[in-house]
């Protein structure tokens, strides 16, 4: 069957419209179907991961009670809003993660194996990252000690956490290691 529009190419897209009890049929080739925008059907041949991801985001927005607030969140560095992000499925800059952290976290959990990076670290900031990871672990231990009312040991942990945090701050002040 030839395309009804250009009458040159094979018609590969067949559209049947049901309207007020009347049935109309249109047979088009891909190029002509694409040109006919009033059909409002997407002929994009490629299934896109971004779009799938964006639709997941939209879904979680709809579910959220604070949806309006989330939509209005804006990245202070690049100006991308969360609603823009949920349409294009891509972030604008490295600060977007902090700006949209609350909304992104549940999604990251769904698509990945958790929310914490455990792999490679740039050599330049390895010391700092190790210290932060150690602090996180100590904080968890500290919570456990407090719940068990082992306050003396908790105090020791608290002091170690403080010392590590000060160490990081000092290194940053010296400009040796930046994040």
């Amino acid at each position: 069957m030839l395309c009804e529009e250009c009458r040159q190419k094979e018609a590969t897209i067949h559209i049947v419209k049901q309207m007020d009890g009347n049935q109309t049929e249109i047979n088009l080739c891909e190029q002509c179907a694409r040109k006919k925008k009033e059909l409002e059907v997407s002929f994009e041949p490629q299934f896109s991961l971004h779009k799938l991801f964006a639709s997941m985001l939209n879904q979680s927005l709809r579910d959220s009670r604070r949806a309006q607030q989330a939509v209005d969140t804006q990245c202070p560095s690049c100006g991308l809003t969360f609603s823009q992000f949920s349409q294009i499925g891509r972030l604008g800059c490295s600060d977007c993660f902090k700006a949209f952290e609350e909304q992104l976290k549940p999604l990251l959990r769904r698509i990945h194996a958790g929310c914490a990076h455990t792999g490679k670290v740039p050599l330049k900031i390895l010391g700092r990252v190790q210290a932060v990871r150690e602090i996180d672990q100590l904080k968890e231990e500290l919570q456990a000690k407090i719940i068990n009312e082992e306050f003396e040991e908790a105090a020791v942990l608290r002091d170690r956490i403080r010392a590590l945090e000060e160490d990081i701050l000092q290194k940053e002040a010296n400009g040796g290691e930046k994040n």
Partner: protein
Amino acid sequence: MKQVQFTMSRWMQDSGPDSEIAISTRVRAARNIRGFTFPCLAADHETEAVISTVSSVAAGIEEFAQFNYWPIDTLTEMEKNALVEKHLISPLLAAESKHGALLLRNDEAISIMINEEDHLRIQAILPGLQLEEAWCEASRYDDLLENELDFAFDVHYGYLTACPTNIGTGLRASVMLHLPALIITRQISRLLGALSQVGLAVRGLYGEGTEIIGNLVQVSNQVTLGQSEEEIISNLFSIIRQVIEQEQSARQMLLDKQRASLADKAWRAMGLLKMPS
């Protein structure tokens, strides 16, 4: 400036471990430079700044003397197509990147795309099943560039990428497999289902959204956050090994039980190739 080669890449010609089934192994790391907007949102002067920063850094590193550098808009359609077909650049970089560029090692085993979806996509491609080797190669160039550049990295989330599906390691490892026997014996759909359950993606020859042609499939990791590079690589390796074993036994089964119809297929194909109509 050197011309883009139209001849086959080494990964296409050379053989590697298990290369009668595993055609090639590809590993890429996504990296962004701190302080620059990601390419999809960046203004022209920013994408230009990324290009000049990266190319001047590369020019100062000894190992990059074996690389050729091409801004994508200086290439002809034919050259772009050749690079896409050899899997050295993505269709996205060829078609729509602003100030996209390519750094390509002479042997075409390492390619670094600039201003694709992320500022940098460091890719290693090797023949056969060589996941660890490919990751080591990509990681080495990652280290070299990281010495000179500040990559966007978060203590908790790892390497930050434009698409949240790449965050963490930024690592996508994929193996291209030739699975005719699993397809003939119709075991493929069960296998594909099982692979997706363990968090692996299966795609056609040219990545996302392409169909399976010529019995070739690409199997890759989906998860990039919460697992280390070594875990991702070794998980993928052990599953690919199982797929290879299944294909081998399916091939043996076909040889034992359906030798005549298999021979018929082969001779018909030979006939078509020898007698073009």
